[in-house]
């Protein structure tokens, strides 16, 4: 029954109440695969959700799955693949990442082009607020408007309102064909050109990423910038979709493992950020991003033309990231920092609006959870 709190939630509440008694602050840790991106969560004890693992309910015919927050993508994949189904969500990072962390950070990868992100694929969550209250929003069915949407409120809240303990997601049946292709594109104009093509095509690819030369070299061995496509549907549809890409240039088959490599390519010490604007500005956003990272010849840059987003990965092992960070100061697009050096977080990402601050005060009145994770809210 959805009206009864899970054991996971009860045990987490005990730990939150214990921290409250000691006046301690908590930093929520899943598998720890993502580390903390050097975000300034200060003076906080780790609150691990690692033990909250396992799928609790999965009826393949319903295409819904309920799992504890610490369940990894690898576990989800193993369970769903057996039924020719999948959770069409591929956040950057390894398959050891957890469902809870992905929702909390609203992380999505290339499949977002077709399937949307966590807010579109999540049906319900159970969580424990910073005040120690166990709540559940949504449900286990694919359509539900009962009650206010506290489910979507948890997605992208970075654990600052509550700790997610259990999640119900919508699955998709695997298509008959799911194939990947690459086309060489111009290093400057490519992203804009692909965006223009996508607008004209009568279908939406499952994924479409434009990668710069350094990234293409690492992923496919190509010397040039490339557009990577993932096309799904019945075999006839995929064949026709592939044929439509010829407008861009020669279409080559690529191994589908290219997507897993793209998700895991960033070194742990990299500076990672996204620039985001209207899709119609794709060309300008791409050019702006490439100019910011121009000082780092090994920067890996990729764009999602359907959404107008460019993601930049700047390895820092043998290079000082200062010029890149300086370049971030004047960007015209929306800048979203994923991973920065510790000193660069100050003041960044703090939520300025009063309504959001009131939400925070209502759910976590003593700033118990992940204090400072936004950079100083």
């Amino acid at each position, binding site marked *: 029954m959805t*009206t009864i709190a899970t054991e996971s939630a009860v045990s987490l509440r005990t730990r939150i109440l214990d921290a409250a008694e000691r006046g301690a602050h908590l930093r929520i840790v899943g598998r720890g695969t993502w580390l903390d991106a050097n975000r300034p969560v200060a003076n906080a004890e780790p609150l691990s959700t690692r033990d909250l693992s396992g799928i609790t309910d999965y009826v393949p015919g319903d295409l819904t799955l309920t799992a504890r927050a610490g369940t990894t993508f690898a576990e989800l994949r193993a369970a769903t693949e057996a039924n020719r189904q999948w959770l069409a969500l591929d956040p950057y990072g390894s398959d050891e990442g957890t469902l809870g962390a992905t929702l909390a950070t609203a992380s999505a990868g290339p499949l977002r082009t077709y399937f949307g992100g966590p807010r579109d694929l999540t049906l319900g969550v159970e969580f424990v607020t910073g005040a120690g*209250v166990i709540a559940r929003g949504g449900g286990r069915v694919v359509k539900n*408007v009962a009650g206010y949407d506290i489910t979507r*409120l948890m997605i992208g809240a970075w654990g600052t309102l509550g700790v997610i303990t259990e999640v119900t997601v919508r699955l998709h049946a695997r298509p008959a064909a799911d194939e990947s292709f690459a086309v060489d594109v111009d290093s400057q104009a490519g992203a804009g050109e692909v965006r223009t093509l996508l607008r004209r095509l009568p279908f939406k690819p499952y994924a479409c990423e434009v990668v710069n030369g350094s990234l293409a070299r690492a992923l496919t061995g190509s010397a040039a910038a490339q557009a990577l496509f993932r096309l799904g549907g019945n075999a006839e549809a995929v064949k026709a979709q592939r044929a439509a890409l010829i407008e861009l240039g020669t279409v080559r088959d690529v191994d589908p493992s290219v997507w897993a490599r793209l998700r895991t390519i960033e070194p742990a010490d990299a500076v990672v950020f996204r620039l985001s604007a209207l899709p119609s500005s794709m060309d300008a956003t791409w050019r702006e991003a490439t100019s910011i990272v121009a000082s780092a010849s090994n920067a890996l840059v990729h764009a999602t033309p359907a959404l107008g987003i460019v993601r930049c990965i700047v390895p820092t092992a043998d290079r000082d990231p200062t010029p890149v960070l300086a370049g971030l100061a004047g960007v015209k697009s929306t800048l979203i920092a994923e991973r920065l050096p510790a000193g660069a977080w100050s003041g960044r990402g703090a939520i300025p609006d009063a309504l*959001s601050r*009131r939400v925070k005060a*209502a759910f976590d009145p003593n700033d118990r959870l992940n204090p400072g994770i936004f950079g100083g809210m």
Partner: protein
Amino acid sequence: MLFRPSELLTYTSDALPSYFKQPGLAVFPGTRDEVIAVVRELAVRKIPFVPRGAGTGLSGGALAEGVVLIGLNRLTRILSIDAENGFAVVEPGVVNVALTRAVTAHGLHYAPDPSSQAACTIGGNVAENAGGPHCLKYGVTTNHIVALRVLLPSGDIVNLGSVGGEHEGYDLVGAFVGSEGCFGIALEITVRLSRNPEQIRTLLADYLSLEQAAQTVSAIVATGIVPAALEMIDQATIRAVESSIYAAGYPTDAAAALLIEVDGAVAGLEHDVATVEALCKENGARTVRIARDDAERTRLWQGRKKAFGAMGRVAPHLVVQDAVVPRTKLPAILAEVSRIGERHGVRVCNVFHAGDGNLHPNIPYNGSDASETARVHEAMKDIMQACVAAGGTITGEHGVGLDKVSYMDLIFSPDSLATMCTLREVFDPDRRCNPGKVVPMHSCREWHGTPAARAASGSR
């Protein structure tokens, strides 16, 4: 402004004939500035109010008891259309289908399509997180709203979400959509527009048993084909439709029919149509009819979309119900619903979004017959309980409103309901905006009054 009882009569109910509440007065501002002025004046005087769109709601959600009703249906301006990026900014009173009509020339449409789309407003759709047949593939309202300019009950104006790119921070657009008019008034709504499919194919399959129809639904979904719509219509509904002016050519001797739509790029679409057709037949369909042209397609859909109107022939009143079960429970729940109908001596007509497991058990009845009315309510209660027991929920797209407040305890714990109240109080601390709806009053205890909350915030 209306204040005479005779004038207010129109506003005493919505499309659900079970509740009647008389507003104290009704105002119909003609501009956003007038809405702001009205709400600010009410804030100063601490007077509760209820926002209302076209009044097509099915949960009693827009009824105002003695308080001020603010009709938003004069705010019908489409403020901007960005065809290139697929966005439009609209006022709350824009009628759902009017928006689609306005963007048709760009090859776009607004995807959520409630059956009332010819009358209902985008503002009301946002409040209810409205669905519709095509939400199976394209998602419900919340998947199509990217930004909102909201007038809070305090009179303050906030901008939620953002159009240009990703939004960082709390998903307050997500929180607002589906808040049933309890969080404020959306003055400007930025919606995502969807590209019109290159081709649409509509099929009608009919069956001698409900169970076979339900099995077909599961079989189609399991293939990975996501139909644009997958609707089930039972015999009682078919007969009501076929004897009305909305007759669509559904076979009246069938126990159930499935209306299935597959859309997308031309290439490969016929393959999906053939797969769907074969699955229908494998699962017992007597005939599968494929619409040959737009006219036939429109006619097949007309029967479905006007089914509620057609039931007007059966009895003067109609309860259009809404609940969701896991898709695999459809055959069992349909049998249970039929037993419940028999037990209470009422006639249940099912016409619903089978692909989503979203039931609409409808009961035509005579509202002036007190005994029948009471039996209808008892049957509805039993149906809700059966859906919850099957792992479902009490509403998939119509909202809680007044009608389902008493069922909220069935699916949410007291702490979950209290948490929802907490969120409401962020937007509406005085609980003046659409009072008495969605969450039962007894759940809205003071946040810090719970033992757990006291313990958590007690020491630092």
